[in-house]
């Protein structure tokens, strides 16, 4: 670990704010986020940094994360509020599918909390950020006593640029990314396709310990690390969750105070960094997704899509993300996940049965996050 030398109060403040000021001058626009600042009171500051991955290994896993200050945003009081987060030219240089990774620090007196989110800073037709719906949300960790400043009177978040380095090899883990259900007719089929550019969002875990006490610190957006497509084919009466493999990596904050404490908050971070790109169905004995709550599509208040028998096809993109709780586990931390922002995750229904079959969902088609398929008999 590299020890940060003791810095004077003026020097620290200048070091922290100078890049922000410089970047503010290069600000292209601002993105409005809904931030929950929790139980904070009084005046505080939300520091926004962008996280830039560097030094990719053969599997496309970044071996270094560099957190670069973007802005210091004055705030007053806690609770839910909207923040204007600057999007600088530097941020726009480090986007992936229109997203940029931000790390936030909320500092109120000697209390601090953090959050990490991928924000849709450059939505454009064809990229993932284009499909983001609603205002991005930033939820902070519970407040904790801030790490001791380098010198009395200096800001608690003292490192102008935080560097996290990969520790150990990447982990490959299996995670829930979706669900699929097909009708019961002989000849009914369904295919789940996770294309090479498909994306998912998973929680980020941070901790002061190496192996335990990780807690959720926001969400980052990830894409496949390799150019491959995954798919799962199913026959009649299929109803299972769909999983894929993802890489995660543990990083250590390499900046510390003279007192040995991490200079940039949490010493350890575990982050899902990319998807392998495969897709497979849950085992037969695994708990299955809920069936169509309306019994049959004809009763679905959101309507239905009809496929004629003997070869009717309907391929739907997962335009709206589906939330899954407990989709992944990092030591003692269970994180949620989302998948399906793009038109690169598809479910294709084929009706080779002798009766008309229908597709319906938990919202209006064609962008319902969860889909069901059945015939007039609800089978």
């Amino acid at each position, binding site marked *: 670990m590299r020890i940060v030398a003791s810095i004077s109060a003026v020097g620290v403040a200048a070091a922290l704010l100078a890049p922000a000021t410089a970047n503010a001058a290069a600000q292209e626009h601002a993105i409005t986020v809904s931030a929950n600042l929790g139980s904070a009171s009084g005046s505080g500051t939300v520091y926004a940094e962008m996280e830039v991955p560097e030094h990719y290994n053969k599997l496309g896993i970044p071996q270094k994360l560099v957190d670069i200050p973007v802005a210091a945003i004055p705030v007053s009081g806690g609770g839910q509020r909207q923040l204007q987060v600057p999007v600088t030219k530097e941020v726009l240089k480090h986007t992936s599918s229109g997203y940029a990774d931000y790390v936030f620090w909320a500092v109120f007196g000697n209390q601090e909390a953090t959050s990490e989110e991928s924000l849709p800073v450059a939505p454009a037709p064809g990229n993932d950020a284009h499909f983001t719906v609603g205002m991005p949300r930033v939820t902070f960790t519970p407040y904790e006593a801030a790490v001791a400043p380098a010198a009395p009177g200096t800001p608690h978040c003292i490192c102008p640029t935080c560097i996290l380095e990969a520790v150990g090899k990447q982990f490959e883990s299996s995670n829930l990314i979706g669900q699929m259900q097909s009708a019961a007719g002989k000849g009914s089929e369904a295919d789940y396709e996770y294309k090479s550019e498909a994306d998912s969002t998973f929680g980020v875990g941070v901790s002061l310990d190496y192996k335990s006490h990780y807690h959720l610190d926001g969400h980052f957006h990830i894409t496949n690390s390799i150019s491959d497509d995954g798919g799962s084919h199913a026959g009649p009466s299929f109803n299972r969750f769909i999983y894929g493999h993802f890489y995660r990596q543990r990083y250590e904050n390499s900046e510390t105070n003279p007192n040995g404490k991490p200079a940039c908050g949490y010493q350890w971070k575990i982050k899902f960094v990319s998807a392998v790109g495969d897709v497979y169905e849950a085992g037969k004995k695994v708990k299955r997704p809920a069936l169509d709550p309306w019994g049959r599509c004809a009763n679905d208040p959101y309507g*239905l899509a009809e496929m004629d028998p003997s*070869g009717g096809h309907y391929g*739907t993109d997962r*335009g709206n993300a589906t939330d899954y709780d407990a989709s992944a586990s990092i030591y003692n931390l269970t994180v949620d996940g989302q998948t399906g922002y793009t*038109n690169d995750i598809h479910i294709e229904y084929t009706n080779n049965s002798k009766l008309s079959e229908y597709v319906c969902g938990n919202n209006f088609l*064609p962008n319902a996050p969860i889909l069901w398929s059945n015939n007039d008999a609800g089978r």
Partner: protein
Amino acid sequence: MRILRLTRSRLAIAAVAGLAVVFAATIWLNLGSSAAGLDGTINGGTWAGIPVRPGEIADYTGFLGNNTGQVVTLESASLTPLKGFPAPRLERVAVEPGKAFIASGRGWPPVHSAESFTGYRVRRGQRVQIAYGVEASKVGEYGDEGIRVTVLVGGDSVTVTVLSVAGTCVIQMPLKHDCPQSFYNHIQNAIPTDQG
């Protein structure tokens, strides 16, 4: 002086012509799939397909959202070709009231309650389901990207693309076999990347 006057006159004509070109280009650009509050991209990223016999109609559905703030009237429709595929003929078009729609069907009308397309008034904020039927007389694999719909908005005629990628495979009787999956894969891969 005469030469100067002519030059000025030509300059004026050139300027007017230039402005007209810019104006026309602006209008043309505004006639895209989300022109002037009309949203034809709702079905973007989705596709459908079905095998039919020669001369049999295949039915699909596109969606048009009216966010213009005023009532619009449907006037006419034409088929949008899909790059890489021969286009079938557009034979029929109708409005599907209610919440059900035909994803992939045969014959016409696609639903018993189908309403006439021409003259249909789309209310403010309404999303209308437009069924269209295509046909080809020869055996083969056909594709389309949806339909271009011309509507009347406040007295102006505006054309908007309604996305609905479809693959129609025309095969001989009997319909014992589905179309090749490779055909549908090609259809899916031909979906424009900005279709949502």
